[in-house]
């Protein structure tokens, strides 16, 4: 089933970490397997935040040896960063298997990212000036607590509660997906993509990388491909209605935008609240009510509808 949520503040910074936690916790019944966030902070000019996964959560139960392996992977990442003349401004563990770097890098970030992902077991969850992606097993309250998201302030965020149907219960298959190698672009999705393998092969032929077998990852790669061809987010969303088969509703966030698209059958739910200073979307009204207590007007976007809002 899965639950998706998004919110964007217009012209102000807010506690989007705690707000997204409240929304996702309200959607817990739609998917208890994993929870993920893509939160957008202010960032510092020239700095990148890189979130890494050094192992799966389930790997941690395989004895003490895994800690030594994680240390080796961490050392390998540091060596690659040094090789690319990256200035590491901070590095901290969110969990035993998740790292957050703040780096300054004047070179090719895609080349650096591809090099890092050559390290066996390492996956870059996100890389961007303002994007930070956090995803792990468990509900929103659990993940938020582990990654100290309650204090995160920013302009917008998207999130996902996952019920695994077509791929494994692991961080690799959890949403959101980063639109590699596009900095600051992330996607959450609810639905099933029926031309996934056809589209995936097409994207792979064009040089895009896939880290999971989850059909939702296609939307991130597809968006990255369209953006790299010079399309706007709105154009990419509209194109997806024509080219992606299946039933889907998905949200895309960029550095300063939040977008949505709904398939031709409108088979997957989305409720939208829109005001002058806040836009909130979720699979269910109950998630919007979790952050807006007063009585409000909400609507269901229709089939083939796409929208983009700016922060």
């Amino acid at each position: 089933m899965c639950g998706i949520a998004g919110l964007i503040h217009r012209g102000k910074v807010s506690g989007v970490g705690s707000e997204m936690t409240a929304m996702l916790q309200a959607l817990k019944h739609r998917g208890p397997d994993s929870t993920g966030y893509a939160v957008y902070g202010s960032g510092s000019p020239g700095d990148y935040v890189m979130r890494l996964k050094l192992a799966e959560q389930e790997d941690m139960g395989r004895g003490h040896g895994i800690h030594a392996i994680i240390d080796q992977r961490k050392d390998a990442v540091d060596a690659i960063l040094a090789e690319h003349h990256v200035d590491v401004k901070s590095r901290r563990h969110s969990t035993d298997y998740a790292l957050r770097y703040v780096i300054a890098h004047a070179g090719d970030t895609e080349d650096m990212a591809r090099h890092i992902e050559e390290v066996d077991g390492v996956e870059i969850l996100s890389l961007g000036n303002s994007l930070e992606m956090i995803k792990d097993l468990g509900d929103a309250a659990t993940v938020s607590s582990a990654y100290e998201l309650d204090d995160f302030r920013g302009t917008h965020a998207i999130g996902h509660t996952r019920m695994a149907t077509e791929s494994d219960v692991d961080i690799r298959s959890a949403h959101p997906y980063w639109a590699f190698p596009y900095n600051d672009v992330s996607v959450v999705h609810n639905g099933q993509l029926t031309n996934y393998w056809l589209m995936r092969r097409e994207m792979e032929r064009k040089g895009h990388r896939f880290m999971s077998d989850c059909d939702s990852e296609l939307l991130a790669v597809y968006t990255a491909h369209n953006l790299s061809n010079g399309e706007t987010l709105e154009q990419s969303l509209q194109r997806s209605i024509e080219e992606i088969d299946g039933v889907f509703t998905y949200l895309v966030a960029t550095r300063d935008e939040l977008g949505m698209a709904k398939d031709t059958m409108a088979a997957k739910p989305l409720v939208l609240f829109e005001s002058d200073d806040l836009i909130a979307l979720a699979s269910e009204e109950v998630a919007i009510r979790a952050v807006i207590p007063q009585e409000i007007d909400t609507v269901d976007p229709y089939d083939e509808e796409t929208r983009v809002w700016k922060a």
Partner: protein
Amino acid sequence: MEGMSDNALAGMTQEQRAETLGMTSEQLSGRSMLIEFDPDAEPNLAYPWAPDVDHGKSATLDADELTATQVNERIRELMHEGCGTITVLNPRGKHGLGVGILSRLNLVVEGSLGYFGIGLIDGPNVRVNGRVGWSCAENMMAGTVIVEKNAGSTFGAAIRGGDLVCRGSVGSRTGIDMKGGTIIVGGDTGALSGFMMQRGRMIFCGNAGKNLGDSMYDGTIFVGGSIRSLGVDAVEAELTELDQHWLKRKLDLYGMAPAEGVAHFTKIVAGRQLWNYDNLEPAEKKLIL
């Protein structure tokens, strides 16, 4: 049956007696069922267990800290205490509130509901001063439900009777599998509204999305605005004078009649090209041949 003696009837069960004498009727409003007359039975409401409520006796219920199940149980308790008017406060988009109410009741919801609100009802008058999520009033048998704001998809799925009203716009697949009753929408409706509709009427004062009335067996759809496209076997029919009288009367009932009248409405019915009730399935033909 003529000539049947009391002695002969005495040896039968009550159901046999009623059937033999032809004293049965099919109840079509509310639950569709065969009713057998029984002179020994006490007069009762449609459902023997339904509480007899007093509309003058009211109660307020705060749903803020309660689960949907607790809210629904409390509504039943209040009805058994004789409350005929119940106001639910702070629903906050919870799912499944106000379901399974099978007798008279004035229910007012101050706020918005999530999925499957007010479903499986037979008789109450409900007003939601907010919005409703997917599948509001699903399988409604009788009564009225008035939603003051917008509604999600599958609004009034499979309803069999009563009036279901949304003053705002509704999502997709409105009235899917509808078997009776009336759905009235003040605004627009999404794709595939009236999909596999079997009976009843729908009125959309605004625009209708694509594939309107797709695979409808029967029933009537009236649209005041534009229709993006008709579904398979949905066809336009003449809007008669009688249709206009009925439309105006129905919309007036809820204060929704357009100032410009109803003559501009488009009437959609089943083309009946998909009807093949009398045709044999290929396997059956093979057996005969």
